[in-house]
């Protein structure tokens, strides 16, 4: 593999539609739960260790070649919010388009044909990493980092937060990112032997509640 491939996949400008989603930050800002950089840091930490961990493990399992349909079903069970399932499939569909154009593969084509409306984004991300010649240890980092970079970027727009402060929040999360990446990779290694029940199922109640509240708004800046 080429190490630089990881930079292409992880680049915030990779055309997979992530910029339109706030990862729950817009709902949290509106509810007054994120008011400054310190709140953003705690929000990101909580999201990273819950939905970030689950996404990273799903991506890693897809990257090692676990059946993506089985992973897609496991992702459904771990995403009880209907609004978040819709968002994950929308993002998965956009990731699929970008990945098939960038790193075409028979495995991507096969998943796209059975899930034309989109599979869960982390599953597609993992398969994209695999098609790009990357491994599970790369996929976990992309998924984990995305779980916090999305909210950080969104809060810069939502609160006019200083972009330097938002980037400092992300930088300080590096040790947590390493831990989540390692845990997710470890879980994914167990999946081929123990099945998808070995995947983590960590949840954050206010992300699920906030996502449903947000989906009911008439006007919003971000899709989720």
């Amino acid at each position, binding site marked *: 593999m080429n190490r630089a491939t990881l930079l292409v996949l992880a680049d915030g400008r990779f055309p997979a539609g992530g910029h339109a989603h706030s990862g*729950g930050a817009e709902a*949290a800002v509106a*509810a007054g*739960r*994120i008011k400054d950089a310190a*709140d953003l840091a*705690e*929000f*990101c*930490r*909580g*999201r*990273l*260790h*819950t939905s970030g*961990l689950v996404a990273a493990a799903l991506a890693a399992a897809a990257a090692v070649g676990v059946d993506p349909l089985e992973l897609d*079903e*496991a992702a*459904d*069970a*771990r*995403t*009880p*919010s*209907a*609004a978040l*399932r819709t968002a994950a499939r929308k993002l998965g569909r956009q990731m699929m388009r970008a990945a098939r154009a960038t790193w075409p593969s028979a495995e991507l084509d096969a998943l796209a044909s059975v899930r034309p409306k989109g599979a869960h984004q982390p599953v597609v991300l993992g398969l994209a990493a695999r098609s790009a010649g990357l491994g599970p240890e790369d996929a976990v980092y992309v998924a984990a980092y995305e779980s916090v970079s999305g909210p950080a970027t969104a809060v810069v727009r939502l609160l006019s937060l200083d972009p330097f402060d938002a980037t400092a929040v992300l930088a300080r999360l590096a040790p*947590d990112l390493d831990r989540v990446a390692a845990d997710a990779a470890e879980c994914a290694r167990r999946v081929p032997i123990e099945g*998808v*029940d070995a995947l*983590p*199922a*960590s*949840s*954050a*109640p*206010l*992300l*699920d*509640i906030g*996502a*449903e*509240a947000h*989906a*009911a708004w008439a006007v919003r800046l971000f899709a989720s």
Partner: protein
Amino acid sequence: MSVPAGQAQADGGLRATARIRAEADARGTSRLPVLDGEGPLAVRRIRSAGREARVALVGAMSAPLGGDRLTVSAEAGPGARLDVTSTAATIALPGQSKRPAHYDVRLSVEEGAELRWLPEQLISANGSELRVTTRAELASGARLLLREEQVLGRAGEEPGGLTSRLTVRCEGRVLLDQELACGPGAPGGWDGPAALAGHRAIGQLVVVRPDLAHAPVQPQMLGELAALTPLAGPGLLVTAVASDALRLRRVLDEAVRRVVP
């Protein structure tokens, strides 16, 4: 009625199991051929006005304490209807053993059966360390109403460490798999704006019913801090947080009125 004491383990923790099984008789009335408790897990039959069998879990002593391993299994045989409640909240307390306590709930709802699992709150007291797993397996045509409430700390107290994983399977397929981790030892951010934001009571209400597969509920908010959402299959979930157990119960009671005909 005397209750077996449960088995002490080498390190001081206790191992105890309660078993409940309801079966429908020829006239469709549910009987309780199995109703066994031990140690801190006592079970009592409650008089029932209808055809369902009713059971209450009775807290017979302080448990779970550190190192305890408690298991409750409840089964509703084909066509049976079983309602399980508890007489008081369960309080996780620190014990002699430094190891975590384990509380495992195994629910089995067989063909055409219905289980209502509505215990009182689980309270995570300061200094305790508890791992809860709840697994429900449903056969074809089975129905489930399940409520779980976690309260972090007794009044004005910091919580203990708590992880709770809830898995619901319908005809072998996983419908819901969710884990909550909070208190000391939980990964960072558990009390932050993404997860609990200082709320001390968390609740889930799960409904599984065959008709929900083709006629899913519409997502809806129940106030600011609770949401009802269709699952990806024949079920729905209400997730709620609240400042205390009383407010949480009010929201979940309202949810039951909306979703249970």
